């Protein structure tokens, strides 16, 4: 009976934590140590250990399929997820490092006691020799015993990992014994005894079949020999001995005297199935020891890949697209929402190739600014003198403006008389951070109605113009600023072109459908958070990318044509896919980043054009949580009123000039208010309202659940 503190893995691990990306994320925490263990075990300091969609083993490199680890998490055993992460990886490593049946020897005479004719002396491979000596049953028995021997001999230096494997196996034993037929029970008992997971006495008492217990008694010596066998050929001899014991006790199907060849094959296949069903119900199945075909596939996989593609390139070394994508997803940060839900984001920089469209983008911005009446010079206006303290490193200077500077002697010497008297800045000097989060789904690029009945794709363009203008405003005021796009699609990389993006998307989708089946869509269509301009980046460095992005947004058809014409040089315009966003994850993540800036005044402006894929309640709860943390959140809806339900400060815009104005004026008002709150008591500060705040304040405060 298990103790109360031994929770079963299946009880403590929700299904989403058993998804392949969660399994890989857990593996990555143990990967450096596992690689080091593998190198010690293989006595090869240069051994590469990586994940891939096909298990491979070759000198110098082993590739593990994360699907193998995934199976271990479905066990009902008293182990923790991190223990399984280590044990399953180490288990795989040990077998991939230790399994080598390539040594060729002449057929051993003692393997053929019933044959009087001379035995061929040509060296043969081990599995071929076993097949000749005992057929499929011998091969299955050998692989079970060899599996246990490798674990017993290689895992003795890692008793902790071994005990995890033991717990995983032992938890499965009662069910497996109950279901297995006598030969399966015997094979399973041999596996457990050779591996040292249970002793023969315990197995005899747990085994339901009397003749299985008797066979085990007779096999004691062989089991002990197997534990100390020096190699696979010696293990194979022991496996044949164990089969003889099984035959003696009637565990194997007896051959009839008039058996035809097909009947013999069927009988042997049946015996092999019985062994496999007993052992496989307990052991963690590694492809290299599953069966002869799987062994060959694992050993030859690398050669096949190389043969297909020619010499090894970086691509071969870096892994396949599906594993790369799983790794990418698993490396993304988990975002925890106030409702208790969580999700994973892929955070990366916007593809730098968008800067290629920068010259066209700057012209388009100037034109749009004229058309939509958005000022592009001195945007800060009356705010500038109020933020001048930000420009002067906290000191205001001038005659009679304060105390005598401690550096007055130096200033005198340098002729800087005006700086002799200086004092700390006005108390209005504060640290500000503004984050702009823009919906980057393809719907933002769709044509929308404009006055006069015409339609044009203005949403993203207006948002980008707003971002551009805000960036200018913040740059003028020396306020920290960032712009991020979010969407749900196949995530692009910073160095992607249209061609590389499409190729990678197709390869990844195809590969994931083959290896992950139903999970492929979830793994390819991810929630992405692209940083267009980060807080730490200078505006001049981000300006070309934002200008290029504006052109893509303002002229989506022309951008798509340009991308088709020069797919290898254009930015990945296909990255804007029409799929519902998950706004709440992005809002929470952007707020978290804002929080790390240690700014006293933090502002998050979110532009969205529709429903979140999550729920409006969750989004509202996330926004509330961000507001409670001291960040002002402004929600701007583009032709959609969802923002009114989710954001306490919101505005719905149906025209491009209104959208841009809403963004700029929203931030300006918030900045004015922040100055008023910190002591700058001026009439205009009191007049500033954040959108519908005046009417909102009369309403009852909304609960966290909306």
């Amino acid at each position, binding site marked *: 009976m298990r103790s109360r503190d031994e929770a079963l893995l299946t009880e403590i691990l929700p299904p989403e934590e058993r998804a392949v990306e969660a399994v890989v994320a857990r593996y990555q*925490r*143990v990967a*450096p*140590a*596992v*690689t*080091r*263990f593998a*190198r*010690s075990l293989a006595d090869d*300091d240069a051994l590469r250990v990586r994940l891939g969609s096909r298990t491979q083993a070759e000198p110098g490199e082993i590739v593990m399929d994360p699907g193998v680890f995934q199976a271990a998490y479905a066990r009902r055993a008293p182990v923790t997820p*991190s*223990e399984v992460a*280590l044990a399953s990886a*180490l288990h795989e490593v040990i077998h991939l490092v230790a399994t080598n049946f390539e040594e060729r020897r002449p057929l051993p005479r003692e393997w053929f006691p019933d044959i009087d004719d001379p035995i061929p002396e040509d060296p043969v491979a081990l599995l071929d020799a076993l097949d000749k000596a005992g057929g499929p049953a011998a091969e299955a028995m050998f692989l079970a015993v060899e599996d246990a021997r490798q674990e017993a001999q290689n895992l003795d*230096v*890692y*008793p*902790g*990992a071994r*005990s*995890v494997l033991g717990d995983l196996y032992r938890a499965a034993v009662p069910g497996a014994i109950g279901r297995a037929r006598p030969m399966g029970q015997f094979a399973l008992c041999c596996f457990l005894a050779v591996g040292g997971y249970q002793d023969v006495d315990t197995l005899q008492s747990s085994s339901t079949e009397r003749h299985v217990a008797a066979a085990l008694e007779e096999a004691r010596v062989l089991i002990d020999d197997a534990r100390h066998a020096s190699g696979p050929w010696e293990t194979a001899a022991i496996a044949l001995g164990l089969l003889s014991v099984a035959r003696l006790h009637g565990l194997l199907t007896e051959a009839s005297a008039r058996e035809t060849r097909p009947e013999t094959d069927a009988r042997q296949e049946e015996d092999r199935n019985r062994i496999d069903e007993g052992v496989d119900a307990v052991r963690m199945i590694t492809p290299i020891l599953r069966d002869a075909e799987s062994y060959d596939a694992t050993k030859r996989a690398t050669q096949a890949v190389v043969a297909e593609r020619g010499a090894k390139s970086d691509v071969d070394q870096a892994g396949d697209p599906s594993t790369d994508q799983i790794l990418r997803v698993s490396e993304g940060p988990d975002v925890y929402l106030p409702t208790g839900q969580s999700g994973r984001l892929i955070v990366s920089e916007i593809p730098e190739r968008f800067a290629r469209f920068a010259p066209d983008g700057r012209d388009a911005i100037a034109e749009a600014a004229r058309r939509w009446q958005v000022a592009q010079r001195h945007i800060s206006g009356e705010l500038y003198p109020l933020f001048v303290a930000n420009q002067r490193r906290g000191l205001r200077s001038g005659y009679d403006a304060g105390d005598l500077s401690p550096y007055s002697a130096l200033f005198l010497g340098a002729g800087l008389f005006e700086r002799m008297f200086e004092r700390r800045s006005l108390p209005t000097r504060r640290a500000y951070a503004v984050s702009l989060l823009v919906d980057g789904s393809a719907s933002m690029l769709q044509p929308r109605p404009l006055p006069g009945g015409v339609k044009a794709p203005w949403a993203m363009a207006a948002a980008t113009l707003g971002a551009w203008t805000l960036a200018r405003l913040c740059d003028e005021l020396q306020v920290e600023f960032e712009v991020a796009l979010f969407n749900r699609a196949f995530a692009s990389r910073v160095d992607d072109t249209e061609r590389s993006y499409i190729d990678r998307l197709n390869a990844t989708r195809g590969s994931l459908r083959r290896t992950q089946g139903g999970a492929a869509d979830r793994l390819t269509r991810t929630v992405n958070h692209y940083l267009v301009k980060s807080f730490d980046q200078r505006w001049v460095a981000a300006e070309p990318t934002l200008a290029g992005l504006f052109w893509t947004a303002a002229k989506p058809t022309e951008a798509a044509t340009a991308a088709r014409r020069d797919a290898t040089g254009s930015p990945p315009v296909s990255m804007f896919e029409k799929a519902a966003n998950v706004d709440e994850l992005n809002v929470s993540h952007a707020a978290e980043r804002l929080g790390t800036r240690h700014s006293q005044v933090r502002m998050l402006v979110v532009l969205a054009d529709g429903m979140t894929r999550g729920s409006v309640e969750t989004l509202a709860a996330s926004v509330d949580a961000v507001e409670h943390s001291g960040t002002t959140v402004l929600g701007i809806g583009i032709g959609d009123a969802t923002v009114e339900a989710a954001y306490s400060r919101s505005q719905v815009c149906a025209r491009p000039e209104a959208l841009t104005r809403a963004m700029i004026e929203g931030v300006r008002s918030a900045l004015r208010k922040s100055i008023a709150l910190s002591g700058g008591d001026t009439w205009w500060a009191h007049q500033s309202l954040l959108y519908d705040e005046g009417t909102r304040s009369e309403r009852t405060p909304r609960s966290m659940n909306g």
Partner: protein
Amino acid sequence: MVEPITFVDPTGRGGPIELTTFTVAKDLPDHDQRAGKIPEPDPHYVDLGMLYKLAAIEEVRRSGLVETPLHVALRGHMGTGKDHDLEQFAAMLRLPYYRIPLTGEVRDITLIGSVKLFGDGRGGTESRWQDGDITRALRGPGLINLSELNAAGAETLFALHALLDRYRALDLPTGETVHLRDDTRVFGTLNPTDLRDYAGTQTLNKAFADRWIIWEKAFPEVGQIEAMLTRRYPKLGAPFVTTMARLAIEVNESFTSADARTRVGTPMSLRTILDRIPAGLRMYAADADPLRRAWEEFVLTHIDPFDTDHYETVWSAVARRGPEGPPFGK
């Protein structure tokens, strides 16, 4: 009084080495101070082969085979027991032990000496020569351990060149020459100069390095750690000894890994294994898992945050749960 002492090869390969101890002459002006610096043999010290090796080179020195004195520097990572070896060698030879740390702030005048002002008792001052650390140690029998050899600047160490080569003497600015006595030995210790965080170390000047025999001191092996633990804590349960030794071996193997991606930044030093963890085991003896508690309180707190996953993986692989029962018996 001169006494014979025997050094035995712990590997069993070499024969015993017979040496005699040194004596501190009673007529030395600093006899009392010097005699007080002879270390006591550590009853818990386990020779992993270094003491025998030091005795072997001492035997060569005494044989007069080589005219130039042979100075040995032990190079190894933190917590491998380099200084302890030298201290125990001094204890065996009954030599006063001078451990002089060469930090980056040490200058030649600190080591050799300088003229200082002293009150003359009549309201004035007078300048007098005052020996530095090395000069003071050289004035009688002693084993001088210049620890952290590669922390001092090369220009500081140049002052020692003459002492360490066949000239065997220091010429003081006062005109005095202090010779390297036949009953004085100069040793050194240093950490490897690589990318690891041994702040303040630098590559050893080639000319200075050439005056030393540099021996590597590796981390001890499983059996050696077990022997040390068993000698020091005879009542410590065997499962605890084995698990602690294995944890140390695995962590230190990761520390010495050539690949930065599979490496930890902090090794498990002998101080951690032989002092801190046993202290933790004693403190938390009544805990459900004393070794795990000691690991958390005395090991994980010492490491960089980015090493935590690696250390914890080693824990899971090697121990998973600490051995049962009170560590030091009932």
